[in-house]
């Protein structure tokens, strides 16, 4: 894995966050949430800093990061795309919508496009089942998405 040089100001922010939780190892998940807000993802270097600050092992931190799907070790795209794979969306054709995104972006789930613009992920139930199938781009929710509507969604962000 390539070594990431962490920007100093963000690094200081991270150390402050750890302090604000009293450097308690029990607050690890809360710290990681904040760390992901700061850096956008959790590369090995961030995990090392967190481990040191909370006085715990890097293995423990990595164990937690890799356990929870909300934490990611790869940077997300500028416009992260999430396709809801809850049951309601699934029976209303979410899989075909996902295939269409994969086809247009030429990436698989969990990957980011080469230009860093889009990343693709699946999530479980946004709770907008009335709008199924649902796709989220960033914070914006698209409802009743049909496979032939995928191109139009991508075009909104391609300008």
């Amino acid at each position, binding site marked *: 894995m390539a070594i990431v040089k962490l920007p100093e100001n963000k690094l200081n922010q991270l150390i402050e966050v750890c302090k604000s939780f009293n450097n*308690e*190892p*029990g*607050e*690890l*998940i*809360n710290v*990681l*949430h904040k760390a992901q807000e700061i850096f956008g993802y959790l590369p090995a270097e961030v995990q090392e800093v967190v481990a040191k600050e909370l006085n715990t092992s890097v293995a423990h931190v990595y*164990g*937690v990061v890799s*356990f*929870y*799907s*909300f*934490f990611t070790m790869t940077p997300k795209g500028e416009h992260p795309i999430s396709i809801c*794979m*809850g*049951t*309601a969306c*699934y*029976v*209303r054709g979410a899989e075909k919508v996902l295939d269409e995104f994969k086809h247009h972006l030429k990436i698989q789930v969990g990957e980011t496009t080469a230009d860093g613009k889009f990343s693709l992920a699946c*999530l*479980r*139930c*946004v*709770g*907008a*089942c*009335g*709008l*199924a199938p*649902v796709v989220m781009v960033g914070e914006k*929710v698209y*409802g009743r998405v049909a496979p032939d509507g995928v191109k139009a969604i991508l075009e909104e962000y391609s300008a």
Partner: protein
Amino acid sequence: MHLLVCGGTGCRSAESDAIVDSLNKAIADRGLENDAKVVMTGCFGFCEKGPIVKVLPDNTFYTQVTPADAEEIVAEHIYKGRRVNRLLYINPESQEHVEDSKHMGFYRKQIRIALRNCGFIDPENIEEYIARDGYSALGKVLTEMTPEEAIQSIIKSGLRGRGGGGFPTGLKWDITRKVAAEKKYVVCNADEGDPGAFMDRSILEGDPHSVIEAMAINGYCTGASYGLVYIRAEYPLAINRLKTAIGQAREYGLLGNGILGTDFSFDIELRYGAGAFVCGEETALIHSMEGMRGEPTFKPPFPSESGYLGYPTNVNNVETYANIPVIITKGPEWFASIGTEKSKGTKVFALAGKINNVGLIEVPMGTTLREVIYEIGGGIKDGKNFKAVQTGGPSGGCLTTKHLDTPIDYDNLLAAGSMMGSGGMIVMDEDDCMVSIAKFYLEFTVEESCGKCTPCRVGNKRLHEILEKITRGEGTMKDLEKLRNLGQVIKDTALCGLGQTSPNPVLSNLDNFWDEFVEHVTEKKCRAGQCKHLLRYVIEPDACVGCTACARNCPVNAITGERKKAHEINQEICIKCGACVEKCKFNAIFVR
């Protein structure tokens, strides 16, 4: 007059924020600020027709409102007193406009206890909650009842855990109360991860104070002074509303030291989940709150005896808590009068899938599936045939036509091979393949298995592989037998609730849709047409004119034939992409 605008996640996704702004602007333009007030409430439940705007006091129920409609609603309804007919709900049977929401089929059979305030009050304003008897249960418990009496009330009400297991709530409280410890914790499980269930989120978004009040009552009953809400980080709106509500409760002296002038102190903090389904299991949830991997541990000891940081911890789910204040104010007898013999009260269901009225509903225990699907849900979408309804999510199973008249309660669902679960109810029609549905749930379990115990980690993976094999058309009768045996072994030997129930979707589908599994295996046929590998694209020689369009567009050159003569598809090469069907102008290509 009040204009209530739905502010649930579903409706907000469809611009209900902008509707509020437009309504406010239209009201200000006419100087009607003193006559009409716009309130953003929690979920109305009728997500299918959202965004919803309801006008009080006349109960007018506007559906699928857009920001552009705001002007007309204010000009006509508020200013001139005339309803905007084109936005009213249309009764699908009589094709008539329904003016009052009380007369809509969707609401008629519902009794709202846990959802009593969702869609009525502004969840960000504690006074609206108080105006609807909010915090009076806490007051009653603190000033008129001993902890034992309050717990007896909950036991008498017959309330059972709404998170899935159905353990008697009062009993759980009593166990926690009886354990002597210097510190105890009250935990609210808001880690709703069941795909297709969103009632907990709706309650937290629409009525956060009901949960806060119930947790404080629990604290008084069990002797705890700390409350923790474990909530999914994926629910930003619910988190914000909960934070606001906790802040307001502190300001009003309803949380903090010496609540309501008594010597009882209680406060609540939030802990965030990070996307792990298994954390809905209470021991896993506690480990996650301690900053560790959310792996379950063997019970006993139960959290009631040794939970968060080793202290006795009472864990209940959001919907369970939402029932508590009403039981205290209206009395356990009233609550126990609703429902069936062993399942009291109501249950909230997230009705979704191939059904006309998708939404959040609350019905008395004992309501039949038929009433839910046909009367409340308005029947199957596009006039198709009902095939199955899945309850209990990845831990549950599918019920079929033969279960339509079964009264829904904990025990009947278990007897039918499914379970109550958290209350997802996904309706499926004739186009859904039950082998694929079983595979879908297994995929979920394989992904969410924490990996601690072998039956769940390895066993489910094998189940999934066998199902995959069957949907590819390579299954044998022996595989079906293997599914059943392995499923049973996992059920008997897995460590936690997630593992023990994970084979349910497979086992119940084998029981209820045996013929369909056999068809996949022996005839290599998928009657729903969902299993791509089992489809055959065939050219009808009489209809084919030999235009060559299909052959030219086939990405794998599976189609051969001379110009102006009937073409043929080589099944060995065909990848079933369907490109030929789209290109054929003569409707000569069929899927069989």
